[in-house]
C-alpha cells in the first residue's frame, strides 16, 4: 500500500468529524438521512436490531442494494463486510465504496484473523472495546476506529464502557515513563511505534467515533462529551417513531454537545425512541466478536 493512500484515508475520516453516520437500508432512508444532515450513510440490508431479531448468518449486503444508495446520495457511503472476509471487502472496493466497516454486527467469517487492510486502497473503519483492540486494528490498516458498543439494542451502556476504557488506557499510556512503553506494547500486543504515538499525542493516531446503542440526542451528546469525535447511529433512527425529526435532532446535538438548553429543546416531541433491549437480556454479545 502506498503510504500516501493511508494518509488520504485517515484524512477522509477527519472530514467526517463532528458528524453523524446513519444506518440506512433503502435509497429512501438514505435521502432522509442526507436531508437530516448525516455526514455519511452506512448501507446495509438489515439494521442491527433486525439482524438480532432474525438470527442466522448475517453477511455483506447485496452490491446492487449498496449501489442504489450510492446513486441516491452525494455524501460518502459506507458498507459492512464480515470480520476476516477479505473477499467481501474486495467486492466493496470493486464497487468503489467510500469506507468499509469490518464489522462485528455481521457474523464473523474468521474467528482468528482480521482482514489485512493494508492491502486495500479503500479505507476501513473497525470496532474496538479497548485500546489494545483499537491499536491492533490500526496496525492491520484501519484508518478509523469506533467503539463497538452493543449494536441493535438501543442501550448505550456498552458504548460508554468502551469509550471510558479507551480514554483510561490512553491516559495511563500518556503518563508512563518512556522505558515502560516496551512492556505496554507487549501487553497490548501491538508494535512499539503505535504505543509511542499514543504516549506522545495522548490520543489514537486515527479518528475515533462512538457506535452501538445510541438512540437519543442525549445519548449522542454523552458520547461526544466522553471524547468521541463523531457518532454512528444504527437502529436508533429508523426503529423510532419519527426518524426524520430524531435524525435532525441528533445531528444538532452532536454539533452543540455541551449546550444542555439546546439539547433539551431538541429532545422534545421526538416520538417514540426505539424500544431497546437491556444488556442483561441479550443472548448474543456482538462486541465479543473479533478481538
Amino acid at each position, binding site marked *: 500500500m502506498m503510504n*500516501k493512500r493511508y*494518509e*488520504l*484515508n485517515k*484524512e*477522509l475520516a*477527519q*472530514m*467526517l*468529524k*463532528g*458528524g453523524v453516520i446513519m444506518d440506512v437500508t433503502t435509497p429512501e432512508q438514505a435521502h432522509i438521512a*442526507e*436531508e*437530516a*444532515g*448525516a*455526514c*455519511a450513510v452506512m448501507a446495509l440490508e438489515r439494521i442491527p436490531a433486525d439482524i438480532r431479531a432474525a438470527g442466522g448468518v448475517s453477511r455483506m449486503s447485496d452490491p446492487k442494494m449498496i449501489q442504489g444508495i*450510492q446513486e441516491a446520495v*452525494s*455524501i*460518502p457511503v459506507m458498507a459492512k463486510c464480515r470480520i476476516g472476509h477479505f473477499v467481501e471487502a474486495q467486492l466493496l*472496493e470493486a464497487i*468503489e*465504496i*467510500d*469506507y468499509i466497516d469490518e464489522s462485528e454486527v455481521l457474523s464473523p467469517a474468521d474467528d482468528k484473523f482480521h482482514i489485512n487492510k493494508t492491502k486495500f*486502497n*479503500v*479505507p476501513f473503519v473497525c470496532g474496538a472495546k479497548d485500546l489494545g483492540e483499537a491499536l491492533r486494528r490500526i496496525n492491520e490498516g484501519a484508518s478509523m476506529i469506533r467503539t463497538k458498543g452493543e449494536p441493535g439494542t438501543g442501550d448505550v451502556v456498552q458504548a460508554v464502557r468502551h469509550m471510558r476504557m479507551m480514554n483510561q488506557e490512553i491516559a495511563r499510556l500518556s503518563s508512563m515513563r518512556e522505558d515502560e512503553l516496551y512492556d505496554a506494547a507487549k501487553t497490548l500486543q501491538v508494535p512499539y511505534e503505535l504505543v509511542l504515538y499514543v504516549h506522545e499525542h495522548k490520543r489514537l493516531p486515527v479518528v475515533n467515533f462512538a457506535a452501538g446503542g445510541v438512540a437519543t440526542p442525549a445519548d449522542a451528546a454523552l458520547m461526544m462529551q466522553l471524547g468521541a469525535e463523531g457518532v454512528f447511529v444504527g437502529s436508533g433512527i429508523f426503529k423510532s417513531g419519527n426518524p426524520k425529526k430524531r435524525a*435532525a435532532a441528533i*445531528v*444538532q446535538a452532536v*454539533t*452543540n454537545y455541551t*449546550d444542555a438548553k*439546546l439539547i433539551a429543546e431538541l429532545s422534545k416531541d421526538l416520538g417514540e425512541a426505539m424500544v431497546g433491549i437491556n444488556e442483561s437480556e441479550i443472548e448474543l454479545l456482538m462486541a465479543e466478536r473479533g478481538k
Partner: protein
Amino acid sequence: MTIGVLAVQGAFIEHEKMLEKLGVDCFEIRKSSDLDRPFDGLILPGGESTVMGKLLHSLNIFDTLKSKILQGMPVLATCAGLILLAEHLTEDSTVHFGTMPVTVKRNAYGRQLGSFYTEENFKGLGKIPMTFIRAPYIDKVSPEAEILATVDGNIVGARYKNQLGISFHPELDESTAIHELFLTMVKGASSN
C-alpha cells in the same frame, strides 16, 4: 486579529492548529451567540457541505455570516467551504451563501478512490502541497474572479475580492502558505 472558524461539522480543529502555529487567535462558531464576539476573518473548513449548509440554517447563523461576507469580511474556504461560497453548483440547484461568482462541481474526482495528493503551483506562493479528499473543483469562474491554481487543467483555487476559495485542504499539510496569504488579506481589510 481574531479569526472565527465555522465549527458545525468537519475538519475545523486542523484550521485552528494552523492558526495557532502562526500565532493568531481564533474561536469556534457553533451557534448564533458565538457571533456576538468580534472577529476579523472567517474560515469555512472542509467536511460535508450538505451537513454544514443545513446546520447553518437550523442553528441560525446563516444570515449573519452571509451579511458579514457581503460586507467584505475576508473568508478562507476549503473544500466543502468552497461549495458553501459558490454562486452555482454544477448539475445541482443547491445554493448556500452564493457569494462567490464561480461554478463548483461537487465530488469532481469521484469517490474516495479518486482522492489524491499532489504538489502544484499556486499563484504567488510557488509549488505547494495539495491534498484532495472527495474534492470539488471550479468548473467556471466569472471574469471578476481571479484563478490562482489549476491541477490537470481544472481550477482548484480562486479569489474574488474578500473570498479565497480552495478545493484542496491546506490545513492537512505542513505548509502554512495558504493561511499566511489569508492572514495578509485579513490585515489588508482591517487596515482599510
